[in-house]
């Protein structure tokens, strides 16, 4: 409740003071009686004590006019008696002071309260600036923009956005720098590490099934074209053929289209160099794909046929390798 509900006598007190002595009504809020904050006797006693001489008659009615929210009392008074004589002036002056008050709050509010206030105030300022700019825009047509820009192009090239050559140059320089540093800006910088017991399944071999040195890889692997297994007696890591994939669905991040490209190899598995050498493809692995069908050409004019891509899904769950091309 936004206000403290005053006890029953103060109702009367208030009512008595407010009303002119032409008669008054008081009502008992049923709720009050039920709540039993005071009994009817008490109420009457209270009433008698307070205004003994003036007490003419008590009209009990169960309307809610005397026990109502504070604003309503104010409204009721205004309806009956009109506004205070100085009401409008006081209102105007209070609103004028509002600006100074806000400024004072802004300057003195400290801590988190101050920050939140400042944020709200800035948002208001930005909005105000925008509306002002909008109003300042005139609807009358003005002359065409007179600035002479650099990079003149003939009329047939004007509506076309041609990639500027400067951009291409700086890109190659950046690429060279990155390659030197050995750092690549990958879409998935961090991946969940895969534990060894999740990656490998222990295979028991031997006549009594006691030997436990073989492991089967439970994740998707990539083996090259000329892959031949080691003699089964000696192979420690088993790569099931059902989990071997050769193609990956590679998405070009700028063109936003996906191609089904052949894989050339596994470049780096974030879980460790052992997995890289085994050819395990998990989420976050950098693979090399054959992009000759994309028709990419270096600025020198050579055709690019291999590019790196990073795997974005868990291939062992989905049954396919989805990757994003690293451009």
């Amino acid at each position, binding site marked *: 409740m936004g206000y403290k509900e005053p006890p029953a006598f103060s109702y009367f007190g208030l009512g008595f003071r407010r009303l002119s002595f032409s008669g008054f009504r008081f009502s008992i809020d049923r709720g009050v009686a039920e709540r039993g904050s005071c009994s009817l006797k008490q109420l009457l006693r209270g009433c008698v004590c307070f205004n003994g001489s003036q007490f003419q008659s008590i009209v009990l009615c169960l309307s809610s006019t005397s026990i109502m929210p504070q604003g309503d009392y104010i409204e009721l008074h205004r309806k009956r008696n009109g506004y205070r004589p100085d009401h409008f002036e006081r209102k105007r002056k209070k609103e004028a002071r509002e600006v100074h008050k806000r400024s004072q709050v802004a300057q003195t509010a400290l801590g988190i309260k101050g920050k939140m206030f400042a944020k709200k105030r800035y948002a208001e300022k930005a909005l105000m600036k925008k509306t002002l700019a909008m109003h300042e825009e005139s609807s009358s047509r003005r002359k065409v923009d007179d600035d*002479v820009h650099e990079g*003149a192009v003939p009329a047939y090239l004007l*509506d076309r956005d041609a990639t500027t050559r400067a951009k291409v140059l700086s890109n190659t320089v950046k690429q060279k720098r990155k390659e030197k540093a050995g750092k690549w800006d990958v879409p998935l910088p961090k991946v969940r590490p895969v534990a060894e017991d999740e990656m490998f399944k222990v295979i028991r071999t031997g006549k009594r099934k006691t030997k436990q040195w073989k492991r089967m890889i439970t994740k998707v692997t990539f083996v090259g074209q000329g892959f031949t297994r080691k003699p089964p007696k000696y192979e420690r890591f088993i790569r099931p053929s059902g989990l071997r994939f050769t193609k990956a669905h590679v998405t070009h991040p700028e063109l936003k289209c996906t191609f089904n490209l052949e894989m050339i190899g596994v470049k780096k598995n974030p879980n460790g160099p052992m997995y890289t050498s085994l050819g395990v493809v998990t989420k976050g692995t950098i693979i090399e794909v054959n992009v000759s069908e994309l028709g990419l050409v270096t600025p020198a004019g050579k055709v690019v046929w291999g590019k790196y891509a990073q795997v974005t899904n868990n291939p062992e769950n989905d049954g396919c390798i989805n990757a994003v091309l690293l451009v």
Partner: protein
Amino acid sequence: MEAEVGEESRELNNNVMCQLADPEGTPLGASMYLPQSVGTKELQQMVNKLLNNEEKLPYAFYISDQELVVQLGDYLHKKKVSVEKVVTIVYQPQAVFRIRPVNRCSSTIAGHTEAVLSVAFSPDGQQLASGSGDTTVRLWDLNTQTPLFTCTGHKNWVLCIAWSPDGKHLVSGSKSGELQCWDPLTGRPSGNLLTGHKKWITGISWEPAHLSSPCRRFVTSSKDGDARIWDATLRKSVICLSGHTLAVTCVKWGGDGFIYTGSQDCTIKVWETTQGKLIRELKGHGHWVNTLALSTEYVLRTGAFDHTRKQYSSPDEMKKAALERYNNMKGNAPERLVSGSDDFTMFLWEPSVSKHPKTRMTGHQQLVNHVYFSPDGQWIASASFDKSVKLWNGITGKFVAAFRGHVGPVYQISWSADSRLLLSGSKDSTLKVWDVRTQKLKQDLPGHADEVFAVDWSPDGEKVASGGRDRVLKLWMG
């Protein structure tokens, strides 16, 4: 031995039934037996006689679109054409004069401080003008190959320039939508800036000399979607042709008095010029119409001037001469229009006959940036961003040959006045001259330091001018 020789000689003397026909298909004379030893010279004599030509005009002969260069017998043998059927030999008149291919850069003239955006020779080939991104139009002296005048006055890049067919006026349009008329002999503006367009000018085309002389009216197209007809003497816009919903990319004033406008809203509109009413709308393209070309364009551009370099004294004389040239070139066939578009295809239209295209010319793998009819109207050349220039038959629209050699998008092309050589300028900073007869590269002209934006071959065939992003104007000579 003798019998064998006899047999051989008999084979060689075997006759073939031939029918001469002109490019449009109408036969010339009756079909006749021709010995197989006949070659182009004999055929030329025959055609000249049948046509009753006073002077011996050169012709080229084609059998099913392949040019006949060797003896008829060898040709038939090679192509294994059956001698049972009548062989149709199509003859095409060639220009009497022969233009030498340009092969060296005679001078590199600096002067512009920003990229050169457009280059144009005057119709008589005596003057050269160029517009650039530094807001000036410069006139160059061809004899000394040095700058002549610098015309300032524009407020933004000068995108298009156009000479009037009588060579007396030069109009330039800029990126701020205003036009300026210049007097080429003094280099001074002929009046104030002509305003009216709200966005940049994409094309300017003068009214042909045979329709009105002295040349007064020209039409301009702009990005704001309308084309305006201006009067150079009244110095104001007389008619506004509005109707296109998107930018108008090119405009051409046809020889029969119609104006053709191509726009980014994929349509071509045909307007009549007295009141500016829309006559036809040619729909068919799937994307922006980038460029238009008319079969009589070269003749309209050069007006009364031709390779004989005759000077005319009065405008009436010029009008008569221009009309004569125009009629000679046009013949009986209706005017043809070809349009190149962003949807990688071109359409061949006959706008006065029907609103449906005559042929659809497909084959390019990138947008077509510039199309140009050869001066005799027999060929169409198209330059595309797929680094190739393609040659098509100018009458039927059939594909003839592709010229590959550029390593960047080809921006502009230009024909030599005798229709035997084709020049192309590209983004890879080279110009290449292609031979139409052998369908091979004739000359490679490297030398520009940056993209080549504009090329032009002078109507008298002596010089080629090219300008581009490296801000210099290069003149090439044979």
